């Protein structure tokens, strides 16, 4: 067991387990933590874990874009908003442990169970031959070639988001 652990494949498997654990633990922190800043940190940990999983799925480009966009921009924006909008920490006092968490747990658990059963039981048909290598070059060519409409659409969406955020932010200045 130790001998196969020291090969590159063995160490890679260990790293994969660590990354999977980081994803799961980060998600648990994000939904359960009392203070919102800790929830944001848990979210960033989970997203770094997902980036690691993308690396194991043979796309390092997407792994780095995930860290750049999600952790670097979205995580920072949410943390900034928490700093500005929640001077006090913790849940509101006097909120009884009602039926809310219980039903949430049951509902979430049933969703996970259903998805896992569907995923594990179905016989997925594998593709025989891959058309291209899926490298960064292929993604670039596809984005400007056959999937150029996706590119245009996402630019328009981001432009509208910027204009909308500016418009909403201006209102407080009058």
């Amino acid at each position, binding site marked *: 067991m130790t001998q*196969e652990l020291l090969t590159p*494949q*063995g160490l890679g*498997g*260990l790293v994969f387990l660590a990354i*999977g654990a980081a*994803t799961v633990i980060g*998600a648990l922190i*994000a*939904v359960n933590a009392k203070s*919102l800043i800790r929830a*944001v940190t848990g*979210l960033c940990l*989970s*997203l770094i874990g*997902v980036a690691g*999983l*993308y690396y194991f*799925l043979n*796309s390092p*480009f*997407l792994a780095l874009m995930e860290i750049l*966009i*999600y952790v670097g921009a979205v995580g920072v*924006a*949410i943390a900034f*908003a928490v700093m*500005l*909008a*929640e001077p006090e920490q913790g*849940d*509101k006092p006097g*909120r009884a442990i009602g039926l*809310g968490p219980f039903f*949430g747990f049951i509902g*979430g658990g049933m*969703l*996970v169970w259903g*998805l*896992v059963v569907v*995923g594990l039981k179905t016989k*997925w*048909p*594998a*593709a025989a031959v*891959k*058309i291209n290598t*899926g490298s960064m070059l292929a*993604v670039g060519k596809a984005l400007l070639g056959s*999937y150029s409409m*996706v590119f245009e659409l*996402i630019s328009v*969406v*981001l432009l*509208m*988001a910027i204009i*909308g*955020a500016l418009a*909403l*932010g201006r209102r407080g200045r009058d």
Partner: protein
Amino acid sequence: MDILNLSSHLNTYLVVGAFLFGAGFYGLINRPTLIGMLISIELVMSGASLNFMAFNHFLAPDPVMGQIFALFIMGIAAAEAAIALSIIMAVYRNYKSIAAEDLNDLKG
């Protein structure tokens, strides 16, 4: 069940993706504040995106398509987070609170 070879099976990624989705759902129901709900929504989208990428690597004939869709989801998530945070700031300015229970001006 070989523990060290988990990364080469499709099922691992499906299970992790389902877990992220379920955790996000649980958080969406349980979090009292708007920002907590936004965090849970980001988890849900991550789970969906991981699913796309897993199928892209193991089953798809064109491995570019899943990556482009995952990039699309990232762009949409970023735009949505920006707009949601602006709205939350505007709401905070008016109501001085970001708990969803306090936003009840239209109630009754």
